[in-house]
């Protein structure tokens, strides 16, 4: 049989998507549906003394916290209510659920519900969160979690350094920007069970949250992912399906709730704004001798997955390099902003902004090529990570750097740079898997049918292409054509729990579970369950393994406006064996585009806790004119434990974009250091251009 691993098989879901036939949550239209709207707070911080519900028309419903079996979103910190009942902690926090026969009516009832408030001072920034004179969001204060790690003798490392570079850096609050806003439809199915059809990364998450909040037993609920219009971490850990689920549970009627774009931008989850500080010491020949790195993350009113984001930001801060002496310090802080949670990159883009910029500055001061200084320091398998644990899995960073050095991009940058263009490079790393102490197992089933095999998994194709890559893995393992695999995905009913489609884990953990089941089928079974537990790091580490990439940016700046135009971005990616090169390119290009947005135009700015941005007219996502030519190549260093040697990589391409671009811009000026993004055009304009 032909090998289909490593071939760019066309996506199996693409034809229906290109025809407009795929069914997204909002495309489900059930007669008699109640449309859901939320009464949301118009202040960011207040004591909520009561909710005044005016008389409402027949056939409409209003539910408040007292109508819920449990008013708690199940989460790591278990501190987020479904509906505010005593305290408002962010602008837009919901305090009542409204259901009505039309969306317009539901919205107008929601607008008419008045909370009785005692307004409190707003914690409106990271600085406010650290200021003891500001109000505390929770009894324990505004520090949600902390991180500290120390390896070697950092102070001695600096004393022995020939050069020390240092800086304070800032990255913005960013939205996921998926084109399909959050949403779900719920109804009672023919068996009397509540069905949840959601735009979600994890249908079991929707099911468990709805069960906990409504008190309806899990066995009386089914959940499935509709076609999902992008997620990037923003449709996991907090499932908005809980709102229509409450309505359906309490009324027996179908319910639909789709976020408006304004709700998505203002009240949806976010990439954490960060402020970081790093100090890095070097020997004369470019060895990094010491790193002292700290980061502060704004998690908004609730942590959701923020505590894990902080750990990852710290773990990868200088993790791409073999450094003997490292100190890491981080704080996750509560503010009266919309909750920060998982977003493609999961803290890594924030820390790379600091470390990679400093590394480029040091290379320049030491007169060492920026690729060379990374080769000198690159981390390898068997070496210790920045917390002292040993890397036991494959690392292809040095190979990626060597290959990048052979690229057309590098040749242009070093040998014949285009006039008036700046060039910069950076390295990124991103873990896969949920990390230490978080159960991370995946189960799948395979059943033989007349013509092929049905593979069942709760992994969801969010757009990243897992339906196709997992089919390739199954087809290869079972020795049948790609077309003989019927992937049944994203449903709780009849599907085993494969864990969430998150943390760049699916290809690895679900791919391995498929291999496990396929082995049993090959041994003679007609039906088999396969499992995989994600490897946990044994000692001081958060994650067991990582993918890496090198990225180069070519830019121009406008002498009149100071605006940066990115002209080309080239990546060399290490993700183990590549299952489907065209889909891998798609992940790389999409991640780059997202981070070009963060670097040049995207940010949520808060004023007294209220987001100034409320639409795509003022929250500026890059268009085809803002994203340049994108090229990608990869090194294939197979990960022994991965399916056919693959590693996860979906989030990786967001990580190194900002420092590559800022370095490229600064290379055009005598006196410019960019430490904060999105890039301030006026700072560029004020700088002295190199001649």
């Amino acid at each position, binding site marked *: 049989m032909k090998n289909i691993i490593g071939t760019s098989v066309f996506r199996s879901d693409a034809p229906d998507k*290109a025809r407009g036939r795929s069914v997204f949550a909002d495309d489900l239209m059930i007669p008699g549906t109640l449309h859901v709207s939320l009464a949301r707070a118009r202040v960011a911080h207040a004591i909520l003394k009561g909710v005044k519900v005016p008389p409402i028309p027949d056939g409409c419903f209003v539910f408040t916290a007292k109508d819920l079996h449990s008013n708690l979103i199940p989460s790591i910190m278990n501190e987020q209510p479904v509906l505010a009942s005593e305290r408002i902690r962010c602008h837009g926090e919901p305090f009542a659920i409204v259901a009505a026969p039309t969306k317009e009516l539901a919205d107008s009832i929601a607008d008419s519900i008045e909370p009785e408030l005692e307004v409190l001072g707003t914690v409106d920034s990271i600085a406010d969160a650290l200021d003891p004179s500001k109000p505390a969001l929770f009894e324990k204060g505004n520090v949600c979690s902390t991180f500290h790690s120390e390896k070697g003798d950092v102070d001695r490392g600096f004393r022995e350094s020939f050069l020390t570079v240092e800086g304070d850096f800032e990255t913005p609050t960013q939205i996921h920007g998926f084109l399909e806003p959050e949403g779900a439809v719920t109804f009672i199915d023919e068996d009397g069970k509540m069905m949840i059809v959601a735009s979600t990364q994890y249908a079991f998450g929707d099911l468990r949250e709805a069960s906990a909040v409504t008190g309806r037993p899990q066995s009386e609920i089914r959940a499935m992912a509709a076609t999902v219009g992008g997620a990037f971490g923003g449709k996991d850990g907090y499932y908005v399906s809980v709102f229509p689920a409450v309505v359906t549970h309490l009324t027996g009627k179908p319910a639909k709730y789709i976020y408006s774009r304004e709700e998505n931008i203002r009240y949806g989850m976010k990439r954490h704004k960060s402020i970081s500080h790093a100090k890095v010491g070097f020997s004369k020949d470019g060895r990094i001798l010491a790193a002292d790195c700290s980061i502060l993350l704004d998690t908004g009113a609730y942590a959701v997955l923020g505590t894990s984001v902080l750990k990852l930001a710290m773990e990868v801060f200088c993790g791409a390099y073999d450094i003997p002496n490292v100190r890491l310090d981080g704080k996750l802080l509560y503010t009266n902003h919309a909750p920060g949670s998982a977003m493609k990159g999961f803290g890594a883009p924030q820390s790379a902004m600091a470390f990679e910029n400093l590394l480029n500055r040091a290379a320049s001061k030491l007169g060492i090529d920026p690729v060379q200084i990374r080769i000198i320091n690159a981390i390898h398998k068997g070496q210790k990570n920045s917390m002292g644990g040993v890397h036991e899995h494959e690392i292809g960073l040095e190979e990626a750097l060597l290959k990048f050095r052979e690229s057309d991009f590098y040749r242009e940058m070093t040998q014949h740079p285009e006039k008036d263009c700046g060039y910069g490079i950076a390295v990124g790393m991103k873990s896969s898997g949920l990390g230490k102490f978080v159960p991370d197992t995946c189960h799948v089933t395979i059943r033989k049918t007349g013509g092929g095999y049905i593979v069942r998994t709760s992994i969801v194709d969010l757009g990243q292409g897992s339906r196709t890559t997992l089919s390739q893995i199954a087809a290869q393992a079972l020795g049948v054509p790609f077309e003989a695999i019927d992937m049944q995905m994203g449903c709780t009913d009849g599907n085993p729990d494969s864990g969430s489609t998150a943390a760049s884990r699916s290809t690895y953990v679900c791919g391995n579970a498929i291999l496990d089941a396929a082995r049993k089928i090959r041994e003679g079974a007609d039906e088999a369950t396969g499992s995989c537990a994600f490897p946990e790091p044994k000692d001081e580490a958060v994650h067991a393994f990582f993918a890496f990439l090198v990225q180069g940016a070519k830019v121009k700046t406008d002498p009149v406006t100071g605006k940066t135009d990115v002209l080309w971005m080239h990546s060399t990616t290490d993700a183990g064996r590549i299952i489907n090169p065209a889909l891998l390119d798609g992940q790389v290009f999409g991640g780059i585009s997202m981070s070009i947005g963060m670097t040049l135009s995207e940010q949520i700015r808060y004023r007294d806790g209220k987001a100034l941005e409320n639409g795509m007219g003022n929250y500026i996502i890059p268009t085809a004119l803002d994203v340049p030519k994108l090229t990608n190549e990869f090194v294939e260093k197979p990960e022994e434990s991965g399916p056919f040697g693959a590693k996860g990589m979906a989030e990786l391409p967001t990580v190194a974009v900002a420092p590559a671009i800022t370095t490229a811009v600064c290379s055009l000026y005598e006196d410019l250091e960019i430490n904060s993004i999105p890039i301030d055009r006026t700072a560029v304009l004020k700088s002295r251009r190199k001649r």
Partner: protein
Amino acid sequence: MKNINCIVNGEKVSRNIPDDMSLLTFLREELGLTGTKQGCGSGDCGACTVIVDGKSVDSCIYPAVLADGRDILTIEGLEKNGELDRIQKAFVEHAAVQCGFCTPGMIMSAYALLQDNPNPTEDEVRRAISGNICRCTGYQQIVDAVLSLNM
């Protein structure tokens, strides 16, 4: 309420609709043509792009009453006898589809471009789809797909 008569994907349609209904709502809720998507509701993202009398429009901010007497083409109208149109095929073959939510609007913008300009340059393609936001692909494979159709 107003009565409108128009042609949608080659078929005559007549409906009584509220004055303030958008063309997008008309297509999705009156006609059940859910291939056209709502991404923002304010004409900023292009997910709702359809063709009206040969020109691409954002159907979410286009009043349905203005469609009276006009010829409308949506994503559902491109395939013939179950066979994908060449733009749809190019999108499939160039990995230009990821989550698929921007795809119908993106394809309609490409359709409008190629009607007027069968051999666009890369810059013309980028300009033509610049009203369509895609968060998944970084546009490269979409641009490649459209350019592959050059005669």
